[in-house]
C-alpha cells in the first residue's frame, strides 16, 4: 500500500522505462554475442564458458551502472537490481551460446 501511494505521487513514465529497458537489452545482447565469440575463440569448455559469461555480464552491468546510469541506478530504473544488474541475463545467454558454439566449432574444427 505504501509503495502504491509512493508510485501515485511520483509516477513512473512508461515510455522512459521502456526506453531504458531497451537500451539495457540492446547492450546485453550485443555484448553477449561478443562474449560468445571470445569464449569460442579461446576454446573454453563447459563451466569455464558459463563462468566467463557471468563475469562478463557483471562487468557490463558495472559499466552500464557507471556510464549509462551515472552511478544513480535508482533514478533510471524502478527496480535497479532486477532491471540493471539482472536484466536480460537469461535472454543474453541464448545468443551467447549460439556464438560460443559457432566459434568453438570453427576454431576447433
Amino acid at each position, binding site marked *: 500500500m505504501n509503495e502504491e501511494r509512493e508510485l501515485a*505521487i*511520483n*509516477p513512473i*513514465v512508461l515510455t522512459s522505462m521502456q526506453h531504458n529497458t531497451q537500451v539495457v537489452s540492446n547492450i546485453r545482447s550485443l555484448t553477449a554475442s561478443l562474449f560468445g565469440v571470445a569464449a569460442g575463440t579461446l576454446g573454453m569448455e563447459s563451466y569455464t564458458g558459463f563462468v566467463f559469461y557471468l563475469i562478463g555480464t557483471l562487468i557490463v552491468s558495472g559499466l552500464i551502472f557507471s556510464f549509462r546510469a551515472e552511478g544513480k541506478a535508482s533514478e533510471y530504473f524502478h527496480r535497479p537490481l532486477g532491471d540493471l544488474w539482472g536484466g536480460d541475463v537469461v535472454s543474453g545467454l541464448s545468443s551467447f551460446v549460439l556464438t560460443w558454439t559457432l566459434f568453438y566449432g570453427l576454431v576447433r574444427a
Partner: protein
Amino acid sequence: MSHANLLAPPSSIPPPTALSLSQKAPLILSSSPTSSLPWPLSLLFSRESPESWTIHENLLLSSLRTGDDKAARQILDRLTTRFGAANERVVALRGIYEEALATTPAELEKVFQGYEKILREDPTNLAVRKRRVAVLKSLGRPADAITALTVLLEHSPTDLEAWAELGELYAAQGLWSQAIFCLEEVLLVLPNAWSAHAQLATLYYLSTPSSLSTLSLSLRYFCRSIELNDSYLRGYYGLKLASQKLIPLLSDSTSVKRNNNPEEEEAGPPPKLATVKKLEELATSKLAEIVRQYGAGNKGWAGLDEAEVIAARALLDRDGKMER
C-alpha cells in the same frame, strides 16, 4: 519549442516555428517517399516510413497556418494517392484544408454541409465529427459546438481531445463547474498530465475567486502540477497567484474555520497558513530564477514560451520583489 521538428505534434508550435517548418515544404515535396520503380524493386528502394507520413501531416498543418495553400494542396494530394480518399484521416485533413481556404461564413457553411453528408453515410467517423465541432466554433456558434461535443462524448467517453475542447468551450461561456468536470475527465485518462492539472487549477481559481474551498483546491492542483514537473512555469505562476489570494483569507479565517459548511469539508481541510506562505515564497523564488535564467539565455531554459516568461516577470515586478 524553438527546436520543434516536423515529428512533434503541431498543436503547441508557436507561429515563428510554424513558419520555419512550413519553409521546409519545397525540400520535402521535391522527393517522393514512394518509389517510382516497378513493384518488386519499389519495395527495396522506397524510403517510406511511418515517420515520413507524420511529417507530411504536420507539414500540411503548418503550411496551412502560414498560408502556403499550394504546398498544402500538394501534400494533401500525395496523402490521398497513398491512403485513398476514403481514409478517415485523409477525409479529416481535407476538411481542415477546405476550412482553411474558406474565407466567408457561407463557404464555411458549405464545408459544414459536407461534413454532415459524410456523417450521414458513416456515423462512426469521429475525426469528421470533431472537424464539425471546429467549424461550428469558427462559425461563432459555441452552444451548437457544445451540443455536438456532448453527443460525441456520449458515444466515445474516453476521448481526451473532445473533453479538453469541451472544457475550453464551457470555460469560455463561464460555466465553470461543467468545465471542471470535463478537465477531471481528462485527468482520469491522463493522470500524470501536469498541464491538465494546471488547467484544472486555473478553472478552480477563476470560478469563484473568493471562496476558501475552491482556492485551496486550486492551490493543491497547482502544487500537484509542480510536483509532477518541477520546472513548470505556469504551475509556479498559478501557485503564486493562488497563494497570494489565500493568505489574507486564511489569516482572518478563524471565523471561517468555525462555521465549516459541508461543501468545504468535502475538499479536505484548508491548508495551513504557514504552508501557504512558504509556498508563496517558493513560487516567487522559482519564478525569479526562471526569469533570470531565461534572460541570461541559459541553455536548457530556452524551451520556454517567451510570452509566459514576460508574464511571469510582470507578475514579479508588480510584486516589487524581483530578486536579481
